[in-house]
Structures are given as structure tokens and as C-alpha cells.
């Protein structure tokens, strides 16, 4: 659908998998397949499939100080985990974070993309500026924002000083710390989301808008009744990517809040890390890892289900 590359130039006849059903299996292809696929399969097997099974295995044991499995407990770790209030609250926190990040990222990304899709002189400057956070890595984002949130010398604290407002404890009160992490994440996500949505909006046929203009339809109406429906596939794609990314958040949390205060930002992946590589409880960490996998798998499947309609394989 979004065609900006050279593939446009070439006429319709394409090698589609389904059209190629007629190809016969031949021995040579088998030889080539092993060469072409071998390396990737080896790496994926060693670093994706095997560790998944191993993690599942560890999650059914207790592990000792040295990290070795000792006592078999079956599903005991799972039962213990999902009945622990601190784990439940961690899950709630994670979900809150994911929902807030996704909504804000998409809404702001749309706003920016819609604004930047106007045909105005100098608009390309704004497009460049809006995508700038794509070049920001977690550590840099964290450092910039930590400095802004700092309660005594931070920019927000200074600003409240100018306007004689009470200083907000961005990093020390549980609710605010969550927002601090959300704001930073959304800020980081924005560049990428903006760029993709802009591409999608630009590919909406101009004729639709021209027709609407002739009809005298307001630009707000155009946005909700032309733009949004036309870019809904991209919106869906960006949402699932954002959701999956948010579930896997780690770096920002490690740098900004370390999961605190009062575990208010102790999200799933941070727990997995902390339980294993701080506290040395590898069994608990593996149990949490399996739960994370189930969640990620669900959203990835959702994405596939959708792509299936668009893609034939």
C-alpha cells in the first residue's frame, strides 16, 4: 500500500508465494536451502529456542546461592508468584505504563504527523525536528530527563520556583515517578512514531481531500473521517510495536527510578533482571520471564493475525 520505493516502476507481475506453488521440489534447492538457512537456524536455535525451554525448566525448581537448580517444585513458583501482592501490583503497574505510553505516543505522534503533513513553506524543517528523538538512546534520554526532574536543581524545580509553585517530587512520589518514566518513554518513542505516521498520512490519496474540500468539509472532519480510516493499518502496526516495546522497557527504568519508589515502577522486565542479577533468585526470575513471554506472544500473534490479512504466506 505505501509505495515510495522503486518497486512502483515495475509492472504488476511479481513473484508471489502462492503463484509459485507450481515449482517442484528439487534436490538442488534442498542443498541451497541448508546453506541459506543454516546460519540463521543455528543462531535462533541456540539463542532463542533452547534458552526458552531452559527458562521454562528453571522455573520449575528452586535455585541456590550459586544459581543451580536444587529442589523441584513443579508449578510452585507460579502459584507463589501470582498470589504475591507485590507481583500483582507490578503487573498492574506494567499494564498502566503500557496503556499510558501507547495512548500518548499514538495521540501525540498523530498530532505531529498531521501538522507536519501540511503543505507549508519550511515544513521539512519541522519534520526533521520532530523526528529528532529517534536518534536518542535510552541512556541519553534518561540523563536529559533526570536533569529536568531533579527536585533541587532540575528544570521543573526551577520553573516552579519562578512561578512560586510547590515543587513536584517527580522521582520520589510513586504516582509522579511513574509519570516521569512515561513522559521520558513517550518522548523517546515520538520520533519513530511520528515518522511512520507521517509516511502513512502522505500516502493517503490527495484526491480524497480535494473532494472533501470541494464539499466544504471541515479539516477536523477530514482528519477523523478520511485520514484516520485510511491510515488505520499503520496505526494498528505502530500500536502493537509500541505495546510490545513498552512491555519490554528496561533501560529507562534502570536509569531513572530503579523500579522505585515503593516498587511503583518495578515493571516486569526490571523484575526479571533484579530478581536474578541482584537478588540471585534465578528460579523466580525465570518464572517471571515465562509470564512475560506469554504476554509478548499474545500481542505478537495479534499483530500477525492482522498482517495475515495484508500479507500472503
Amino acid at each position: 500500500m505505501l509505495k515510495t520505493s522503486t518497486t512502483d516502476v515495475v509492472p504488476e507481475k511479481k513473484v508471489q508465494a502462492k503463484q509459485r506453488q507450481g515449482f517442484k521440489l528439487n534436490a538442488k534447492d534442498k542443498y541451497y536451502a541448508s546453506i541459506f538457512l543454516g546460519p540463521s537456524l543455528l543462531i535462533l536455535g541456540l539463542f532463542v529456542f533452547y534458552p526458552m525451554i531452559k527458562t521454562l525448566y528453571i522455573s520449575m525448581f528452586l535455585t541456590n546461592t550459586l544459581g543451580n537448580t536444587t529442589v523441584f517444585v513443579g508449578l510452585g513458583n507460579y502459584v507463589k508468584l501470582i498470589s504475591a501482592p507485590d507481583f500483582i501490583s507490578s503487573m498492574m503497574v506494567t499494564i498502566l505504563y503500557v496503556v499510558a505510553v501507547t495512548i500518548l505516543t499514538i495521540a501525540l505522534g498523530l498530532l505531529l504527523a498531521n501538522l507536519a503533513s501540511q503543505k507549508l513553506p519550511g515544513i521539512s524543517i519541522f519534520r526533521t525536528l520532530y523526528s529528532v528523538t529517534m536518534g536518542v538512546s535510552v541512556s541519553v534520554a534518561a540523563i536529559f530527563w533526570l536533569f529536568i526532574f531533579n527536585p533541587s536543581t532540575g528544570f521543573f524545580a526551577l520553573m516552579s520556583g519562578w512561578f512560586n509553585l510547590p515543587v513536584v517530587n517527580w522521582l520520589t512520589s510513586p504516582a509522579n515517578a511513574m509519570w516521569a518514566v512515561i513522559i521520558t518513554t513517550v518522548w523517546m518513542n515520538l520520533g519513530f512514531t511520528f515518522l511512520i505516521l507521517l509516511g502513512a498520512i502522505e500516502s493517503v490519496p490527495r484526491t480524497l481531500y480535494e473532494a472533501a474540500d470541494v464539499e466544504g468539509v471541515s479539516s477536523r472532519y477530514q482528519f477523523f473521517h478520511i485520514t484516520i480510516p485510511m491510515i488505520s493499518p499503520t496505526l494498528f502496526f505502530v500500536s502493537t510495536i509500541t505495546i510490545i516495546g513498552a512491555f519490554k522497557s528496561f533501560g529507562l527504568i534502570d536509569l531513572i527510578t530503579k523500579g522505585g519508589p515503593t516498587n511503583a515502577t518495578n515493571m516486569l522486565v526490571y523484575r526479571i533482571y533484579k530478581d536474578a542479577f541482584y537478588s540471585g533468585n534465578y528460579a523466580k526470575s525465570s518464572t517471571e520471564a515465562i509470564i512475560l513471554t506469554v504476554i509478548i506472544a499474545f500481542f505478537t500473534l495479534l499483530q500477525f493475525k492482522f498482517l495475515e490479512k495484508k500479507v500472503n504466506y
Partner: protein
Amino acid sequence: MANFDESAILKRVFSYILLIALAVVILAPFFIGIWASFLPTMDIAKGDLFSTNVSFNNYVSAFTKTPILRYLANTVVIATVTMFAQLIFCSMSAYAFVFLKFKYQKTIFSLFLITMMLPFEAEIIPNFATIKSMGLLDNYAALIIPFLTSAFGTFMLRQSFMQTPAELKEASDIEGLNHFQFYWHIVLPYNKISMITLGAYSFLGAWNQYLWPMLTTFSNNSRVIQNGLKQLQSEETFNDWGMIQASAAIIVIPTIIVLFVGQHYFKSGMNEGAVK
């Protein structure tokens, strides 16, 4: 556009105001951070953000007192190698799915799809053990080998390869090209845009790695920039904010330049591969 009636002008002015306001909000963290990087830490600690003691001292101390250059170098090497490896291995497996016909093709393809559902973050414990048993801890290889290929990259390139005109394959069969030649001389050049996109994607992905390098690097010889920045913040003592901001600026400026240059590819390529 030629029609300069009042409301159109008003609308345009309003658009610019909004555009500028949003740009300011988005860029504010950069400006504040970069401004702070020119101030002495003591002024920052006192909250004196409008200090006039502007200097490059923080940059000098970031370069001379910290191993930031070494971290940058490590990261560039790792990200570059990862990028080329993914370009090669992903394109090879994508090629196999599109242009070859073999037993269990569907099953193997599903396996690739399944790997996209398994988050690396959930597999760090066994992967640490694997890298340890290979004797690769604290080595560039530890940060590269698990990421030599990617299911996402394969999937993305497969989508792109499927758009290759059938005539090209037919022509190359007539020419007597074997699969290697067809792959190297026709398919890769033809899908250049997708390759560049995947390249940028995997480079940035490797550049932004945080958790895994944190677990597997133990010295400055292999430590990457994302973890290195954290080291500048000390545990029990006082933070040298000026120098930390300077280091952040040193890191972010090159990536932003790369990004501006590569932006065009990235946008079109991502849309290509993502939503077809």
C-alpha cells in the same frame, strides 16, 4: 495557495505557532541538557542555570577523564558488525523462503515467526550461561553472536523479496545463474532500499542495547556507551552533572547526524517493510 484571504493567512499563522511550540517542547530536553554541559557543575548544583561561566571544560574532562571514547569505539564496532551480519544472514534466509522450494518450508517459516514472539529479555539467564560456557564473556563476540540474525529482519526482507519481478528470475535462469549469483547480483541490488532500512534498524538496535551488554561486559575493553554513561554517575558520592551532560551530548550528536542523513530511507523503508 495563491488565494490570500484573511482566514487562510490566520490559519497559516496559527499552524506555524503550533508547529513552533511543539518543536520547542520536543527539543527542550536537548537544549537544557546541552546548555548545562557548558556550565560548571557547582553552578548547576546551586541551581544557577543562568550562570555565565560558559566553557568547554566539561567536554575536555569527559574526553580526558573518562573512557567515553573507548565506549564509543566499542559500540560502533559492535553495531557495525551486527548490522552487516544481519544484512547477510537475514537476506539469505529470506531468499530461501522466497526463491527456494524445500521440504518443511512452511514449518521452518513458522519457527521464524514464533521466534518473534519470544522476547530476548526473557531468555537472559540461559543465554548468559551459554555465552559463559563458550568463554566469550567480556568479549565483543558476546554482544554480537546472539544477534547475528533476526527473525524480524528475515520477515521484512521476505516481504520485500516477494515483490521482485518474476521476469528477473526467468531471465537469470536463462543466463544460467545459480542461486548464489542470482542472490548476490540481482536480488540484493534490487532490494537495496529494504536492505538499507534493515541496516539502519539493526544498527540502531545494536547501538541501543542496554540489558544484555550490562550482563556480559566486565571491563572497559568491551563496555558499550549505553552502560558507560551510567558509570559516570557514582553511587554514594556527588554527581558531576556538567560532565555527564557533556558526555550525553557527545553521544547524541553523531547519532542525530546519521539519522538526519538517513532519514529519507528510513521513513520509506519502514513503511514498506512494515505495512504492505
